[in-house]
């Protein structure tokens, strides 16, 4: 019997990891649909960001109470999951608490600490669930989250609560051990005989591990993927001052050749597409940003345009980018390569009115706990609007022609530029 259950468990494990791995590769492929950009310089500064921003969650600590609760979930997740190693070994070989004899006195210390963390995670999740659904916090009430995103967020918290409950129940139903938190549940099970206890323990064990496999495979479809991507996203975060915009070398050269035609190569390649109309025109970092987004909305809460009722929401920019990228990815899966579907990120997902509202103030970039730049995407889409579609509000066209003719955004005579020196 134990032999058969070991085989079944092994097969299920292989399937779970296979599907997960395959989906991760699809996501990796989707990210690499983006434009190449070199982000491998200054490894020390990049590792520092991984430690501070991802491991250390520095940005979360801009709001300390929430940061502490989130830290419990995060530490709980990592530490409790080390117990998975034993669970998987037990599952495959039909052993029972494989590490117990080897670890001696350390074993109960470890499991006790897992249990304390499990309880803390349980409580933190309950708090977050009520915060999301009962407290009226603006960034959680936003239309950005209507429908699936709201369900997604609640589902993650609910699953964590169930998994922690199962972990504690499994320990409580095991008569061979007595741990700090699960011993509180033991009295409730005191009327059961050894066989019934064993059934409960086994059932909790199976649902727990299958739940974890299910959760793992749910990750790639969820905002919860940030638990994986926050780390590489911190590594590849921009190390430049936030005010610096990415230079368009193609345009730089066009201007240079216009000014100094002698420098122009005779067989110059036609210029690339200017700016981004669709996800493939964005950089791979922009696309990794989209998959890393956990839809917390700190960006939109800090956005001056969003907080004054404009249509722009940096969080929606990220969610739209991911949605569009998923559509493009599925299109490639179905057709072998991308077949034009007559749609694009610009216009079909993100409207011109949203893009026009951005003040490039960098508040969204500053707030993001997982090193995302929504502003970068906004600017690339704006570039496409202006340079590909010549789509600008009339005031901007006026500003452009003033700069071109008067060398200032207003219509003043260039000769008056130093007129202030002659005023009293």
């Amino acid at each position, binding site marked *: 019997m134990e032999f058969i259950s070991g085989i079944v468990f092994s097969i299920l494990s292989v399937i779970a990891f296979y599907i997960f791995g395959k989906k991760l590769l699809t996501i990796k492929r989707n990210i690499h649909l983006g434009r190449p950009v070199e982000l491998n310089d200054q490894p020390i500064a990049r590792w520092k960001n991984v430690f501070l921003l991802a491991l250390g969650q520095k940005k979360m600590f*801009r709001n300390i109470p929430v940061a502490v609760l989130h830290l419990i979930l995060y530490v709980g997740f990592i530490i409790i999951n080390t117990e998975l190693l034993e669970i998987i070994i037990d599952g495959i070989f039909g052993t029972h608490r494989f590490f117990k004899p080897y670890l001696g006195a350390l074993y109960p210390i470890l499991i006790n600490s897992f249990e304390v963390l499990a309880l803390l995670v349980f409580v933190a999740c309950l708090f977050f669930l009520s915060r999301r659904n009962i407290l009226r916090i603006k960034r959680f009430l936003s239309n950005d989250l209507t429908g699936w995103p709201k369900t997604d967020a609640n589902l993650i918290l609910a699953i964590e609560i169930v998994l922690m409950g199962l972990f504690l129940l499994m320990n409580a139903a095991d008569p061979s051990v007595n741990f700090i938190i699960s011993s509180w549940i033991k009295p409730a099970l005191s009327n059961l005989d050894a066989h019934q206890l064993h059934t409960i323990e086994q059932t909790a064990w199976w649902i727990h591990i299958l739940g974890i496999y299910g959760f793992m495979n749910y990750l790639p479809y969820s905002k919860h993927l940030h638990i994986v991507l926050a780390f590489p996203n911190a590594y590849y975060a921009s190390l430049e*001052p*936030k*005010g*610096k*915009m990415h*230079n*368009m070398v193609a*345009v*730089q050269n*066009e*201007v240079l050749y216009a*000014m100094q035609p002698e420098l122009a190569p005779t067989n110059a390649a036609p210029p690339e597409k*200017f*700016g981004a109309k669709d996800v493939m025109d964005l950089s791979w970092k922009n696309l990794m940003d989209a998959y890393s987004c956990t839809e917390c909305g700190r960006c939109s809460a*800090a956005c*001056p*345009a969003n907080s*004054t*009722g*404009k*249509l*722009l929401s940096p969080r929606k920019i990220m969610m739209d980018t991911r949605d569009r990228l998923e559509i493009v990815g599925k299109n490639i899966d179905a057709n072998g390569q991308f077949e034009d579907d007559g749609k694009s990120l610009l216009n079909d997902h993100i409207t011109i*009115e949203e893009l*026009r*509202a951005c*003040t*490039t*103030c*960098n*508040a969204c*970039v*500053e707030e993001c706990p997982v090193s995302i730049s929504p502003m970068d995407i906004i*600017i690339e889409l*704006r*570039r496409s*609007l*202006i*340079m590909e579609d010549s789509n*600008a*509000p009339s*005031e*901007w066209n*006026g*500003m*452009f022609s003033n*700069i*071109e003719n008067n*060398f*200032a*955004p*207003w219509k*003043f005579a*260039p000769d*008056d*530029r*130093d007129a*202030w*020196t002659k*005023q009293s």
Partner: protein
Amino acid sequence: MKVSTMAEMMAAGTKPEVLFWVGCAGSFDQRAQKITKAFATILDKAGVVYAILGKEEACTGDPARRAGNEFMFQMMAYQNIQVMNAYEIKKIVTTCPHCFNTLKNEYPALGGNYDVIHHTQFLQELIESGKIKISDSNEWKGKTITYHDSCYLGRANDIYEAPRKVLESLDIELKEMRRCKSKGLCCGAGGAQMFKEEEKGTTRINMDRADEAIETKANFVASACPFCNTMMTDGIKNRDEEVKTEVLDIAEIIAKAIQ
């Protein structure tokens, strides 16, 4: 006032310590011209040998670039870099955070490498080195001032301390707004918004920010950017406060406080 241009200095065979990049607002906008003149006055008093480009200066291209018009930006940058490199400019000071950001962060990739500092940093240096002396009986003494962070100084370039240090040298009470430093709320002008109508919303960004400034009950709002100055002035005017809170650039405040 007598302000030399680079061309004049070149003709006279001299070189300035620093180029004062005035910027479009500082050159043409009537309100911002006062900031320009205040800063030039301080430079004179401190004995700094400086020059302007005068008629040879042109828009850095910042609003065009942020609106999405990279061609226009590249054209302006090319032109400005040609002029500045011909004069062998080494150091630039500017009263506009947008010009500052573009000159400092974006021109190097195009061949324009200069040591660029913002006027609030320059003022801090002048005060700390004793080149300018704050009068003990300066008119701001004991007043409450709130400082509005410019996005292009603050988040864009992590300059939060210099403007505050300069203000604190005045023996004033510096009162922070609810959102300040890296959490500071934008005035609404950046990203070429200055040059168009705001998109449809429930309120204007500068009104929100003006409310935060008014909440502090400060006597004055200090700004470090000509565009923030305009936006904050308009916002506060619109709120029709009984006590008119005046918006002043840090250069204007310092110009009136030095011996």
